[in-house]
């Protein structure tokens, strides 16, 4: 009972904090139906903001104990709710409303698939909460750090600076371990089988968030198809259950990229930009791999905006970038002050001579990554490629298609670059990491499907409407 309560309590607090934030930004409406529809997005938003704040406090030597966690959740949630009182919020019930509006045929097909997906998720939860974390990095890096953070009042410098613990990659950011530590504290035990439920909650939150975000612009089939593609993706069966940080990083990255792309196409929605920056900061605070992709996405967004001479939009974007930098700064400063370095020779990695010397690693890396993409994402990336090509050819959401294509290339390129400059043997890199590091590209593909699928849905719907209007009034 204590373990179940220890899983539920932080989840509820994080969701309420996120809900307040969403209301404050004007993303979610008031009332229980709106709250239910936005709960997935709220959980991820609450997790992002509270853990970013908690991480900053940690670098100041203040542990995120349960009372402090509750206070941070309260401040974020109540602060957002107070802001929301000044706003006029629509009665947005998100994806729940689009289900009711859908024709019966859609509803039956979608409901059948959603029942299958829900059953699959329940079975996943039952299977993985019986198994303590047993994949190497799951226990050696992520759960270990979560246990350390849950056991000390503050950031125990010894564990994060001593050479005896270098193997746990002391430079990796702490969002995920901090989240695990909160659940460990709430459960009162280091139950690494139960901690799998947190990864499950993040995935379910992501699926709900996709539905909520997509439902604003598309009919039920579009968001349901995207959500179902995610649930049945092979990485859910495999990578999610390893308790590695790659899937959580991908969830934050995918949402951040989706919202950023939506802002470039509808810049009046500055709330999308604000929320995108929150998720992008969370992604870069989950894994170092996300940092170049986050920077790349922000640069691509600025180029897209500047290229169309919408220079006024560069100002809110600059504010968003500044927010991301402020969110990432505490951990970077702490590692710098304490002399904690990563494995990658970043300085040499930008030197042309060094890059040329290691250029022979590129073909094998690219081939290995391309082979891993369908193994992790199934049909996700091929579907996204088809949608991007269709968008470029037809002109439907062309700007967004360019954004996703370039961002995905940046994500892929950053992985190739990191494999190229790494001191580790290429064989070891490919065998241990290739299957995980492609998840960034897979989640950008998910964002592209959600966005472009919705755009094509609107396009089809408007064509059908025009066609029926012509038939009625020739």
């Amino acid at each position, binding site marked *: 009972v204590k373990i179940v309560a220890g899983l539920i309590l932080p989840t509820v607090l994080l969701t309420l904090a996120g809900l307040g934030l969403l209301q404050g930004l004007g993303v979610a409406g008031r009332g229980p139906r709106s709250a239910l529809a936005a709960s997935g997005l709220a959980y991820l938003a609450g997790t992002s903001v509270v853990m970013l704040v908690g991480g900053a406090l940690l670098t100041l030597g203040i542990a995120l104990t349960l009372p402090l966690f509750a206070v941070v959740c309260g401040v974020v949630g109540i602060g957002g709710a107070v802001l929301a009182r000044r706003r006029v919020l629509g009665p947005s019930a998100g994806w729940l409303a689009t289900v009711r509006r859908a024709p019966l045929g859609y509803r039956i097909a979608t409901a059948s698939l959603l029942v299958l997906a829900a059953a699959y998720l329940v079975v996943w939860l039952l299977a993985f909460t019986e198994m303590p974390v047993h994949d190497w990095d799951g226990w050696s890096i992520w759960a*270990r750090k979560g246990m350390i953070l849950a056991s000390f009042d503050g950031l125990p410098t010894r564990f994060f600076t001593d050479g*005896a613990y270098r193997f746990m990659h002391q430079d990796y950011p702490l969002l995920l371990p901090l989240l695990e530590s909160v659940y460990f504290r709430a459960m009162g035990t280091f139950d690494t089988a139960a901690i799998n439920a947190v990864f499950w909650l993040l995935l379910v939150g992501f699926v709900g968030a996709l539905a909520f975000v997509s439902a604003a612009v598309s009919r039920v089939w579009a968001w349901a198809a995207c959500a179902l593609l995610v649930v049945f993706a092979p990485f859910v069966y495999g990578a999610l259950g390893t308790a590695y940080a790659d899937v959580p990083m991908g969830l934050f990255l995918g949402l951040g990229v989706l919202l950023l792309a939506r802002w470039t196409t509808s810049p009046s929605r500055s709330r999308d930009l604000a929320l995108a920056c929150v998720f992008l900061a969370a992604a870069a605070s989950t894994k170092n791999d996300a940092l170049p992709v986050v920077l790349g996405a922000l640069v691509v967004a600025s180029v897209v905006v500047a290229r169309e001479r919408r220079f006024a939009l560069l100002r809110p974007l600059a504010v968003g970038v500044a927010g991301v930098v402020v969110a990432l700064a505490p951990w970077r400063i702490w590692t710098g002050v304490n002399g904690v370095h990563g494995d990658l020779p970043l300085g040499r990695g930008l030197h042309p001579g060094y890059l040329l010397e290691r250029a022979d690693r590129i073909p094998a890396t690219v081939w290995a990554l391309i082979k891993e993409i369908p193994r992790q994402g199934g049909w996700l990336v091929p579907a996204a490629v088809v949608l991007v090509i269709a968008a470029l050819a037809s002109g439907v959401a062309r700007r967004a298609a360019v954004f996703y294509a370039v961002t995905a290339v940046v994500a892929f390129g950053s992985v190739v670059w990191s494999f190229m400059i790494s001191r580790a043997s290429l064989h070891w890199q490919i065998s241990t990491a290739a299957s995980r590091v492609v998840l960034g590209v897979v989640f950008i593909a998910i964002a592209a499907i959600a966005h472009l699928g919705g755009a094509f849905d609107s396009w089809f719907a408007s064509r059908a409407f025009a066609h029926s209007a012509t038939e009625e009034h020739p």
Partner: protein
Amino acid sequence: VAWLLLPQFAVLVLGAAAAANRRWPRRAVAAASATLVVAVAGSLGADVRLLSHRAESVRLTSEQRTSRGGAAIGVRVAFVEWARRVIPPRKSVAVLFRLPGRNEAAYQWTAYRLFPRSVTDDATRADWIVFYGVEPASRGYFTAAPGLRVFAPGFAVARRHA
């Protein structure tokens, strides 16, 4: 994992059908129904595999389940669990191996399971020494030394300040 490509494929087919046909003619309904059957088969296939994994886990003892990660990488997990019971919490520990350098798998798993005890590379500053696959005598610890506890030949722990 291949099972999951079926429901994913079904979702794509249904999505495309829904987008293209607002009113769903009979042929689209038939295609959608057939695809749903494929989706059910794929999804249930994955469910069955997950449930069999769960059944395997349930059959294990609590210690086997806890030590699964270490056992998977060839660590002598029974010794590590024994050491965990012998060494008091919050003490510092140095892990010694037969060969110079570290057996990374054993080192990382031992450090993981011995937490909240911390590990150190400097054996002269550790409260406890863990001998993993190395005879204590070869490192100057005699079997009669106070504070030495032997699990099996080559596997022992010793309190340094006994």
